[in-house]
């Protein structure tokens, strides 16, 4: 039922995209009919450039996300588990976190030029905070009784982390992963678009400056589809990790 | 939202304020339909205190929601003060079982009680005095500015009762209002409801699955069968009007009535239903419990 409605919605949306330029509601030079976008996409798919660009985007996104998640988890667990460290770093984290990652664009360009590293810097910086903050929430959420119990049984520090802290934190890590995955994609494309590092974003900029509007839309659709896939997979992973976890949590203001 | 029907007035007996006639409710599900209520008919006189008991899942909440106009009936009709219920009627207030979820958490206690009155466009002075009175009546004169979640469960349910009382309804519906509070508080709240009922002359329809509570509170107890639900018995509670937790509950008559209703509930759980030969109770008249149970 829901699937049918959703399909109806998608079909309607595609229909509107097709009709609006055809009946002249919007200038087709600005918004070509959907069929032309599809045709342009068909043309793109046949070129090696497209696949190279897609590969660059996916690679940059995945590497950046992996670094951010690894760094966020490790630092989050360490900072979160040591109360003094946590207290001492809170203000710094609260300061650094809202700094918009795009502020680093000029620096990245200076340091690395239009290379994948520039974009990687942005991706890692932006997604790192998402993970770190969630992990810190997670460590804080560990049941004090469980912690006390572990201590009274004289678990080693490592065992405490593995048996007590980590299981509680895992769902938060997955939430952080989901948020970071979306943010990483945004910054990956942004870097490519603005800095000109290789990837779909750069191809979009190229298509725009060469007036290939239908190709531009086709590539935007590709980024959207990739974004949907990322969200779906991340949400599935998050749900799976929540499966055995009784507490009901979400991205809520705390 | 009610549409007028002809008031069935019979001289001599007090006109019923609420009539439930042949009500059936089938939940339309995705895979299957659930017939929660099959055929309910009873009527309630103005100013009466009626308790409805039935096993869990009997459809008590469903019935109450239909009466409150929150659910459409599949068949039959509900008539309140001569008008057919098609949506939440004006002169009716409901106290829900889930007290924690029926109060607006973003409003203070006072605002919670006042909001429905604002909606009635009452002048400010009237609102103020109604709210003050209602909160004082439930013993919460000093927590106006608190938010509901800052209060204990029993206090939250008092706020819900105060809100209902301040609304000045003709009919007050209560759906297992005390199921989730501790025994001590429960006794106090039961006495509170009886006191308010006497003072305000409001008609109360009180749903519970607690037999003691039903007998202690009610002038009559309607026992429902298992789902799909029909009325199994209508027991008149002939206890003295002046009731209190200690004495009333130790009266021999209380124990008898309690046993009677208990037996009926047990039958209900075993799936006993009024036989086809059983005639339906006359609306508004309580069939003596002895004859009813004797026939089963």
């Amino acid at each position, binding site marked *: 039922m*829901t699937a049918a*409605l*959703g399909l109806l*919605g*998608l079909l*309607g*949306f595609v229909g509107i995209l097709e009709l609006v330029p055809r009946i002249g509601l919007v200038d087709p030079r*600005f*918004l070509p009919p959907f069929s032309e976008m599809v045709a342009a996409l068909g043309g793109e798919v046949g070129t090696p450039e497209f696949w190279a660009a897609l590969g660059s985007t996916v690679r940059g996104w995945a590497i950046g996300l992996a670094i951010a998640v690894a760094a966020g988890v490790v630092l989050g667990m360490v900072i979160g588990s040591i109360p003094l460290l946590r*207290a001492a770093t809170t203000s*710094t984290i609260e*300061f650094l976190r*809202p*700094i*918009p990652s*795009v*502020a*680093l664009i*000029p*620096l990245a360009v*200076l*340091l690395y030029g239009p290379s994948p590293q520039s974009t990687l810097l942005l991706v890692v910086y932006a997604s790192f905070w998402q993970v770190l903050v969630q992990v810190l929430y997670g460590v804080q959420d560990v049941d004090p009784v469980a912690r006390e119990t572990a201590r009274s049984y004289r678990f080693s520090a490592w065992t405490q982390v593995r048996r007590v802290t980590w299981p509680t934190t895992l769902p938060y890590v997955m939430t952080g992963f989901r948020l970071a995955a979306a943010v990483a*994609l*945004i910054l990956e*494309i*942004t870097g490519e*678009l*603005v800095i000109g590092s290789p990837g779909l*974003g750069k191809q*979009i*900029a190229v298509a*725009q400056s060469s007036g290939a509007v239908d190709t*531009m839309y086709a590539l*935007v659709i590709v*980024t*959207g*589809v*990739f*974004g*949907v896939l*990322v*969200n779906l997979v991340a949400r599935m992973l998050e749900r799976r990790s929540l499966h055995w976890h009784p507490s009901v949590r979400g*991205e*809520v*203001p705390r | 939202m009610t549409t007028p029907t002809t008031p069935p007035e019979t001289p001599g007996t007090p006109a019923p304020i609420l009539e439930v006639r042949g009500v059936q409710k089938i939940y339309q599900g995705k895979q299957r339909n659930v017939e929660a209520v099959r055929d309910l008919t009873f009527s309630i006189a103005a100013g009466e205190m009626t308790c409805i008991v039935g096993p869990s899942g009997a459809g008590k909440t469903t019935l109450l929601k239909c009466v409150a106009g929150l659910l459409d009936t599949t068949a039959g009709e509900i008539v309140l003060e001569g008008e057919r219920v098609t949506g*939440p009627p004006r002169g009716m*207030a409901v106290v*829900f079982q*889930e007290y924690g*979820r*029926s109060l*607006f958490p*973003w409003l203070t206690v006072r605002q919670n009680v006042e*909001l*429905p009155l604002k*909606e*009635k466009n009452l002048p400010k002075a009237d609102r103020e005095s109604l709210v003050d009175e209602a909160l004082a009546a439930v013993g919460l004169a000093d927590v106006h500015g608190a*938010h509901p*979640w*800052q209060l204990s469960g029993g206090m939250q349910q008092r706020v819900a009762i105060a809100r209902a009382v301040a609304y000045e309804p003709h009919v007050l519906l209560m759906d297992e209002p005390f199921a989730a509070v501790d025994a001590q508080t429960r006794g106090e709240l039961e006495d509170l409801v009886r006191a308010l009922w006497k003072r305000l002359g409001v008609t109360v329809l009180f749903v519970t699955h607690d037999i003691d509570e039903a007998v202690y509170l009610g002038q009559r107890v309607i026992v429902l069968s298992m789902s799909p639900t029909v009325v199994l018995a209508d027991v008149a509670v002939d206890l003295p009007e002046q009731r209190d937790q200690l004495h009333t509950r130790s009266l021999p008559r209380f124990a008898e009535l309690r046993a009677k209703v208990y037996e009926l509930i047990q039958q209900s759980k075993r799936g006993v239903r009024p036989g086809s030969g059983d005639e339906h109770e006359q609306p508004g008249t309580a069939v003596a419990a002895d004859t009813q149970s004797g026939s089963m």
Partner: protein
Amino acid sequence: MSVGSVARRTMLTVGLPVVLVTAWWFATANSTNFFWPPLREILEAFADTWFSNRIMADVVPSLVRLLVGYVLALVLGIGLGVAIGSSRTLRGVVEPVLEFFRAIPPPVLVPILILFAGIGNEMKVLVIVSGCLWPVLLNTVEGVRGLDEVLRDTARCYGLGRRSQLTHLVLRGASPQIAVGARQALSIGIILMVISEMFAASNGVGFTIIQFQRTFAIPEMWSGIILLGLIGITLAFLFRLVESRALAWYRGLRMTQRGEG
């Protein structure tokens, strides 16, 4: 609170930032590296660059565009979100389309909207609106859908009309979730403010910073990065201020719930 504990807390709050800034100061004090000028130079450049007419010429226009776009996105997102969240059928029809729009990385909207709206203020505001809209919209839908059934019934049976249901029940009840969306939208909005100016503009913070970078005015560029950081921090702080007032009830509610559980 004792003097000792206040002192301790102050130490913990300002300690690390002071250490970091000091380290930066001394590490770069004698720096001759072109990319890493001394912090002293950067701060001088900051005062010279931004405490002049640039505040009016660049900073204010950027912030105004952000504010207009953000507010428009909030109004649109909440309005549409309430409508969509209230109807199961409508939700079913539009949800996949909305998910798609949400998943599009917002910066790609810049080249598209340049086609429609040129490179003026309208384009930048439009970019901000169309990027900020989706998180607000989808979270509002989620919030409206998650409204408590009992609370809905309560509102109905106490005769709350459509308008009071909207203000007293729907918007208030969905507000915690709306705040989640609004917060995501704010960081996206700042990104888009900068990006849209880096792409094509004649004024604005993003435009100026890129100019500095292209002309190798390195201390000025650093001062621009610091300015953007300060803008981000200030806006996040303001957001938290508003949120903590508007959602004080929600924090209390959750704290009591967590206390019980």
